[in-house]
């Protein structure tokens, strides 16, 4: 400790293992069993979606009329769909789209949320009032109804980057535009308390600009809750995307996503072909529960009060 007067040897000053904050957090995270299980499951899923073209002998789009509607078997572990396509292969290709949308929409939402929240919290007064009323407004909009209306408009728009991959870009845009509110509130709260702290005061005294104080001094201190909120937001956006695609307003076939695979399975399932609905939904469930547990683990690990 800095207050001790006895000189310490070099060996004592540098322990075997540097106990940085990050390594402490990692230790904490490792003790959260479910978070570790979640990380492994999510890791395997991501691995599968990246390398599916090497791992699977089947194509996600070529139909095989002789193998239509086959229940799960050794050759097709999750069965086949109405066109005889291997469901497991399609699920991993679909995972690519679903996970990418979840992640990209979250990055967009968090960016908007951080900007609005930090401006509102830092400047306060009228700016804060206006921005927070806007946030309230977005929170009282019925979310899925707005998503559907925006998705309807999207279908008519002719912008290539939004249209690619069955409207993937557009879905990212609308999910991002509707998912910044919670982050904005969180960041604003953090800014309100942090901006009164001495380190901000001292930065201001030495003449730092507003943007420097916001981005270099305050924002890094809000990283922890933002990381946790963003993790949980990824899960939420994955559910929103699959819900929208399930209703037929999301990503359009033939681009597979877990949501539009469920949509296609609706009629089949009433005929008893359960696997077409079961496995895509199971994937959404596994992904979301893994991410939620990881978020829970991160919250514990990054909470400085909890470090033993």
């Amino acid at each position: 400790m800095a207050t001790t007067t006895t000189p310490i040897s070099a060996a004592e000053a540098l322990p075997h293992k540097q106990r940085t904050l990050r390594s402490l957090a990692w230790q904490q995270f490792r003790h959260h069993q479910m978070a570790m299980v979640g990380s492994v499951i999510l890791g395997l899923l991501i691995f599968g979606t990246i390398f599916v073209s090497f791992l699977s002998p089947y194509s996600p789009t070529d139909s095989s009329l002789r193998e239509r509607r086959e229940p799960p078997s050794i050759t097709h572990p999750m069965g086949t769909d109405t066109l005889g396509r291997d469901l497991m292969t399609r699920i991993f290709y679909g995972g690519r789209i679903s996970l990418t949308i979840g992640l990209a929409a979250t990055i967009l939402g968090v960016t908007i949320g951080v900007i609005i929240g930090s401006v509102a919290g830092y400047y306060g007064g009228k700016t804060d009032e206006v921005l927070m009323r806007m946030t309230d407004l977005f929170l009282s909009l019925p979310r899925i109804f707005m998503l559907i209306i925006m998705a309807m408009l999207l279908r008519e728009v002719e912008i290539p980057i939004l249209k690619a991959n069955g409207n993937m870009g557009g879905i990212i845009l609308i999910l991002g535009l509707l998912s910044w509110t919670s982050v904005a509130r969180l960041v604003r709260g953090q800014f309100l308390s942090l901006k009164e702290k001495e380190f901000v005061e001292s930065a201001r005294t030495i003449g730092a600009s507003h943007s420097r104080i916001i981005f270099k001094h305050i924002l890094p201190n809000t990283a922890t809750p933002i990381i946790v909120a963003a993790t949980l937001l990824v899960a939420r956006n994955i559910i929103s995307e699959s819900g929208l695609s399930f209703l037929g307003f999301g990503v359009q076939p033939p681009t597979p996503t877990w949501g539009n695979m469920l949509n296609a399975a609706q009629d089949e399932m009433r005929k008893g072909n359960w696997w077409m609905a079961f496995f895509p939904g199971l994937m959404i469930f596994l992904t979301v529960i893994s991410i939620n547990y990881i978020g829970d683990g991160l919250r514990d690990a990054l909470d400085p009060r909890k470090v033993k």
Partner: protein
Amino acid sequence: MAQYILRRLLYSIPLLILISIIVFFLISLAPGGPMSAFEENPNLTPEDIVRLEEEFGLNQPIYVRYWKWASRIIVGDWGYSNVTHQPVLQEIAHRLPNTLQLMLVAFLITLLIAIPIGLYSALHQYSLFDHIATFFAFVGQAIPIFWFGLILIIIFNVWLNNPISPHHGFAWSHFTDCADCKPLLPGGGMAPYGVDDPTLWQRIKHMILPVTMLAMFGMGTYTRYMRGQTLEVIYQDYIRTARSKGLPERLVVMRHAFKNALAPVVTIIALDLPGLFGGALFTETIFSWPGMGRLFYRSAQRGDYPLLMGIVMINAVLIIAFNLLADLSYAYLDPRIRYD
């Protein structure tokens, strides 16, 4: 109190106006929009279309159109559906009770399960029950409810039959394989097909699956939240005081802990309401439940803009009304809060 309610109602007016502006502008961005139905009609010449556009006032700037639309809304003229040509308000009024019925029953069931479990979990923290309940709360939070609905149909409508026979009780094939077998529970609608005046039992049977599906929404969240809030409360000084003065544990929990833990939960539930309407949309779509959510879904498919606008507005009004209700019950539960 009356003054507070009045103030809140006044505050909600600008909110509703803003919502209506946003939705109106979004919908008028839609290409074709209200004229698309006429453009597809081969009997109309382009000149007719222009004439109709003038007649409907569609060639006017958007703020003029918004103003006209808004002033008609206020006097109760919500326009006509593009598809059925029925008044929008009438179409909504037919379905709103069905939606509210579904939501109310599901919501009560959610609370009746989630709140006791959350409370019990917290009072027996780290017990086996607590671990299991917390795990299931995580599961409940992660289950996409539309998938849950499909699973319910597979199990209770496709697989399980009535009467349950040894050969067909749990068959991997469709129930029609068995001549005298009927699905255990109906998988759609509010009454058997073609029955206009269903019995109470028929109604209940048709409600079981959709209500179960919708009750799943919020189950996990509320359980975890109730548990968390109870844990916050039970280490407070006033609980220790209550115990030390010899109050029976049951009264300590019910009178002191429960009520104080419940107040913040009410807020979370109110904030979740827009989500519950969304859940109802999925439930009604999957189970062909003739409610507002399904009407919205069908209108979106058909591009029926007047109906879409109407439903969003009704929804916004309901959400604001329920939020007010939640605030009032908060004041009832937490005596420190007085609205005057």
